[in-house]
């Protein structure tokens, strides 16, 4: 139980990553794959947040007199994740807009049927 307690966030994060990868690997539908990508990115973000997360930690702002630095949550991962989320959003938007164009051109979103570019 201790293990689970200590590492629950990591497990969750990697669980999400694996789910995302699984979707990308198995699903044929582009929308589903984009959802998979999104889950994958969420997992990664969660993982990075977890790196700096401290139970009952405070924000890394010296707002009170008696705050020690080891009680604070590491701010860097949060900054990273903010950036990553923005990037993820951009990718997601691009992917979805491409999906629309793809459907216009091919009349399907099943990537198994869209194999003009090969070999």
């Amino acid at each position, binding site marked *: 139980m201790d293990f689970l307690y200590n590492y629950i966030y990591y497990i969750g994060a990697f669980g999400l*990553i694996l789910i*995302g*990868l699984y979707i*990308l690997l198995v699903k044929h539908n*582009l929308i589903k*794959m984009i959802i998979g*990508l999104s889950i*994958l*990115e969420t997992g*990664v973000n969660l*993982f*990075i947040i977890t*790196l700096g997360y401290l139970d009952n930690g405070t924000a890394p702002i010296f707002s009170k007199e008696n705050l020690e630095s080891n009680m604070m949550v*590491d701010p*860097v*991962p949060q900054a*990273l994740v903010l*950036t*990553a989320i923005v*990037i993820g959003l*951009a*990718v997601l938007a*691009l*992917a979805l807009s*491409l*999906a629309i*164009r*793809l459907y216009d*051109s*091919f009349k399907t979103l099943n*990537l198994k049927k*869209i194999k*003009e*570019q*090969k*070999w």
Partner: protein
Amino acid sequence: MKEITYINPVLLIAVPLALAFIIPILKFVWEKSIKWIPVAGFLFDLIVSITLIPIVLQKNIIVKIGGTTTPFSINLVVGPAGLLLSIMISLAGFLVAIYALKYIQEGDKTKYHILFMLLLTGAIGVVLTGDIFNLFVFFEVLCISSYALVGYLGNRAGIESSIKYLIQGSIGSSLLLVGIGLIYGQYGTLNMADLAAQIKTADSISLFVPMFFMITGLGIEAAIFPLNSWLPDAHSSAPSSISAVLSGIAIEVGLYAMMRILFTIFAAESFMGFLLFLGVITLLIGEMSAFSQNNIKRMLAYSSIGQIGLIVFAFSIATASGLSGGFFQMISHTLNKALLFLATGFMIYRTGSMEISSFRGLGKKMPLTALFFTIGTFSIIGLPPFVGFASKFLIFKAALAKQELLFIILIAVIILTTVIEGAYFFRIIQTLYFKESDDKSSKQESAITALIPMFIFALLILILGIYPNWIMKFIHSAASELLNKMSYLRSVLG
């Protein structure tokens, strides 16, 4: 110590970035001028980069952003290796931007120019940064703009390739981010020099797992063998000017990032033996796949895979001469492949087809374009007196200097691939010059703005092929910078 004044290298990134976002504003003011913005931006970068050369050859330039002392600030490290690539990027950017003046006729040109500038800005950021998270960010800038540019034409092939590229690329960046996270979790720093100082040698598994994640993530962009499936699609579907940049710059930047991480952060000597094979396999697969292609851009794309394999091989030799060979091969590949794609672009424009067989008799109809194409192919095969010969020569020399049987065998494989390469490239030459076309229409050369960059590329190929010594000093210092972890550390951490 006397301070030497120089232009702040931050401008290398800041100026094109700013210009990129000026474009949409400018669109409302003076629409005709927007296509000149990239030209101006990269000309500026090129000039600044070149003026930085003498300074960088003496010592690395460290630029700190965000105040405080080194490990905790975001910094740029302009070493010879980074500067070399940034010169290549701005040169290619400048020339391809000139090319695009006439070449880009359809679609929303504003978007094209913005994305084009972002792509190369991202690339310059990647090679100059000293921080792995910044590396990731710039990488994403590069990747996202290239996803979009691949689909720029909006045709079936472009959209399909773009979405496939996006899926694989996103997985790659996620994996890279996981790797960065794992590293950060262990060492609590993102500065490359600081990381390198803490990681003396890569031995524990806790180091290898992040390393593998990062290699896989970057490997997708660098197009190493099993990770390069996006490349032939993307490079063949993009507009030719973009293909030139993707082939000549993007994958090499990916490779550079990978090598920077391997050499500087992890110092993973033992991993190099594996990369050696991976490089040769990449080379083999790339050239073999290109062999029986009928689509010229696909063929060139596969050939890029092969060239990347050769560069990986050269870097994995992990000696100063091997790295010099690798850098030289990067330069030669940038010049060759950019030239080939640019020439191909107008040839396709002229014939309306990407099939090699439709290029019959183009040697007569577009003599200069065909001539430049021929120079590019000769160089990429490695025939003297072109630059490709010098770079292959250096790689062979470095590999043989190891004096091991393994290297002789690997070189035999490389020779085989060169033969295959020769076979398919010479076939195109024959098609261009020695096959009669059915179409009897008159001579129609490429646009002059396309010929100028091609001419400059061809001239550089020839000049660097005859006088490779001119850049050897620079390349040597780039190689020693990448190879010598300690001096990098000292220069950054002080």
